[in-house]
């Protein structure tokens, strides 16, 4: 997909008709838009989100039509706000148009009359053909979940590193690697398909069986209901986290609170990291117990066995001196040394009698030797188990101790927030604490729901066994049951495959991110990106002892990490387009980036400016003068095909802000009493 042109009419801050032609050749793939802060950069990114998906991420998402345009018409008259994008996709040209018509009620109010969306495909003869289902077609061209990585405002970039983005990152991987097919299959199989097949089974089942099926259905309905409640609480929890993140961000940029909040952020990140490692460590201990734990109780048994074997060997009874007479005596006594009865004609009798045969002697000696060897091995494993458990316990204590220390430090930070120095931020701090308490409550509820579901799963399993035992053996019943079993087996297979593929693809993406990351942070080979099992994006520093530590989530390296993620998504989508694979979804996608350089220093900015055009097919970049320095200009200049400026008329009393571009001065912002608006102007080359 290549963006060719955008036409904006009375959309948000953009007044009247504004237009941009994008540079779209392989060599000149970058279009730069120079704009002051608060002059419409985020709204420009929103113009793409809105025309494609009807979504606005900026403030006041319901206010689509430009206020100045509305103020200029009489009450009851209508105004159109619209965005039209022309783009090329797979050698076809498209024109997508979305508009809203609003009626002015009075000076402060307007109402929506209607919203229209239209997608035309433009043939080579220039004729347009309207697509019947534009929304579905758009999803085919650019999956909705991916748009958040292609149309990006600055604040969204850093957000990718936050805890709330886990699910977003996971769904991006799913879509990119085509795994949502598996998601949908699972939903269908475990939902309607299973329910219908169970209905068919019930119709041919006996009375007892029907009862079991009904009980199983009740349990499964209960499980679905708990899952739904859990989803609601999880949704609420995400909303609470987002709200808390906003407050954290305010505290992070507040002059008074900045240092303390950054300290708190780092402590929380460290605590989360250790808690994650502690969880993994506990799982490892459990695994060790389930595999070798039985050895803890057989130490005495092994020692006693060794003594008995040794005594027998010393007496010459075992193994080499096993005598014909000794076996004969045992057979005559009709009782084996293990205590079993030896009745003539029985299998046991025959087995002992066979030992009289000289050829059986070697086999017997081997068995004796291997028994001694096994006992020695078991003792060794037992010793290792003991040593490992001591080490495990030490590490466990260390993790708990570290968490305790961090908690103490966090309490200290919280008590500092309570001091008079932060009186102005009191409301924010109190509100945040309340949100955190609500989040804890939600987490507890989620844990309770998960335990309930585990219990229900156990009971469902019991019912399944009961069902299998009571099922009538009629042909119809057998077939219906077989189909239901196959349906469950297929769903289980898809489930297992899905988990395995998503973790494999997570690794692929992570390797790609690190490749890009290293190209940008030259000279910091000790830093690396981690996309962990929980789909959290972190940047870590390798330590000399082989371990690693988490780096700050608010630093420049985290910003580069998030950009590396976006560049990887674009690069993998491009590679998938050329490769074969059932699941892979690919395509060429443009990047529309607002203020991508964030808190980066000049060196990093230059490397990012050089690297980005190498991965993306087309870039539209919006930057404030503060971020567009000599380094960025040098990094990108060979790729720049077109430039524009946003000329912003603001009621705020401020000096005229200008920027020198190609040796000419362009106004970015100037004061105006009324008629606040933004206009787009092309920079002459």
């Amino acid at each position, binding site marked *: 997909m290549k963006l060719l042109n955008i036409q904006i009419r009375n959309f948000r801050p953009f007044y009247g008709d504004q237009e941009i032609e994008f540079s779209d050749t392989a060599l000149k793939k970058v279009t730069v838009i120079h704009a002051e802060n608060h002059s419409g950069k985020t709204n420009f990114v929103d113009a793409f989100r809105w025309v494609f998906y009807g979504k606005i991420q900026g403030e006041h998402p319901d206010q689509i039509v430009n206020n100045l345009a509305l103020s200029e018409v009489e009450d009851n008259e209508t105004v159109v706000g619209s965005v039209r994008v022309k783009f090329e996709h797979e050698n076809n040209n498209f024109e997508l148009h979305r508009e809203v018509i609003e009626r002015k009620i009075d000076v402060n109010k307007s109402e929506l009359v209607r919203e229209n969306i239209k997608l035309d495909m433009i043939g080579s003869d220039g004729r347009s053909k309207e697509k019947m289902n534009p929304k579905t077609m758009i999803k085919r061209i650019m999956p909705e979940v991916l748009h958040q990585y292609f149309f990006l405002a600055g604040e969204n970039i850093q957000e990718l590193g936050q805890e709330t983005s886990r699910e977003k990152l996971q769904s991006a991987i799913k879509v990119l690697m085509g795994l949502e097919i598996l998601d949908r299959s699972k939903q269908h199989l475990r939902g309607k398909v299973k329910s219908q*097949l169970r209905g068919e089974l019930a119709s041919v089942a006996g009375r007892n069986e029907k009862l079991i099926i009904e009980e199983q259905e009740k349990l499964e309905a209960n499980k679905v209901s708990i899952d739904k409640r859990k989803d609601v609480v999880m949704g609420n929890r995400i909303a609470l986290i987002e709200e808390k993140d906003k407050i954290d961000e305010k505290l992070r940029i507040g002059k008074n609170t900045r240092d303390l909040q950054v300290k708190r952020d780092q402590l929380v990140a460290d605590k989360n990291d250790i808690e994650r490692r502690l969880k993994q460590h506990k799982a490892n201990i459990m695994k060790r117990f389930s595999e070798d734990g039985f050895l803890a109780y057989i130490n005495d048994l092994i020692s006693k066995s060794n003594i008995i074997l040794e005594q027998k060997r010393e007496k010459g009874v075992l193994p080499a001196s096993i005598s014909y007479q000794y076996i004969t005596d045992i057979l005559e006594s009709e009782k084996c040394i293990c205590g079993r009865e030896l009745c003539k004609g029985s299998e046991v009798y025959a087995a002992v009698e066979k030992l009289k045969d000289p050829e059986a002697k070697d086999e017997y000696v081997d068995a004796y030797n291997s028994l001694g060897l096994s006992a020695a091995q078991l003792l060794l494993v037992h010793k290792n188990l003991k040593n490992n458990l001591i080490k495990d316990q030490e590490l466990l204590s260390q993790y708990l101790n570290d968490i305790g220390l961090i908690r103490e430090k966090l309490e200290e930070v919280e008590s500092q927030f309570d001091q008079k120095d932060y009186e102005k931020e009191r409301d924010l701090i109190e509100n945040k604490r309340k949100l955190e308490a609500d989040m804890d409550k939600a987490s507890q509820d989620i844990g309770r729901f998960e335990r309930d579901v585990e219990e229900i799963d156990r009971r469902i399993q019991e019912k399944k066994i009961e069902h299998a035992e009571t099922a009538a053996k009629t042909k119809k019943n057998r077939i219906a049951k077989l189909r239901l079993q196959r349906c469950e*087996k297929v769903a289980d297979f898809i489930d297992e495959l899905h988990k395995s593929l998503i973790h494999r693809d997570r690794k692929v993406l992570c390797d790609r991110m690190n490749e890009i990351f290293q190209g940008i942070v030259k000279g910091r080979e000790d830093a690396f990106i981690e996309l962990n099992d929980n789909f959290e994006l972190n940047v870590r520093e390798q330590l000399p002892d082989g371990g690693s530590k988490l780096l700050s989530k608010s630093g420049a390296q985290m910003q580069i990490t998030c950009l590396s993620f976006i560049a990887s998504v674009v690069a993998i989508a491009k590679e998938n387009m050329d490769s074969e694979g059932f699941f892979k979804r690919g395509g060429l996608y443009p990047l529309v980036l607002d203020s991508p350089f964030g808190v980066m220093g000049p060196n990093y900015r230059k490397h990012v400016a050089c690297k980005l055009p190498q991965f993306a097919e087309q870039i539209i970049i919006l930057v404030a003068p503060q971020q567009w320095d000599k380094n960025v200009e040098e990094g990108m200049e060979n790729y720049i095909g077109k430039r524009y400026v946003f000329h912003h008329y603001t009621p705020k009393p401020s000096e005229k802000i200008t920027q020198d571009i190609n040796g000419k001065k362009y106004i970015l912002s100037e004061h105006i009493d009324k008629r606040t608006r933004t206009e787009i102007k092309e920079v002459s080359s």
Partner: protein
Amino acid sequence: MGKPPDDIYKDADPQVLKIVQAILNLEKEYLFVTRPKGIAEEIINILKKEIKE
């Protein structure tokens, strides 16, 4: 950590694999339709075709 995808395929029951492939092909066709109607019935038909009376 679970098995890698290749091992999952290798260890699967051939009949399950055949049904999975047919279902995934069907899902791919309907991928962009938000709420596809009749897809559950088509999946049931796949299962019935494979496990006949």
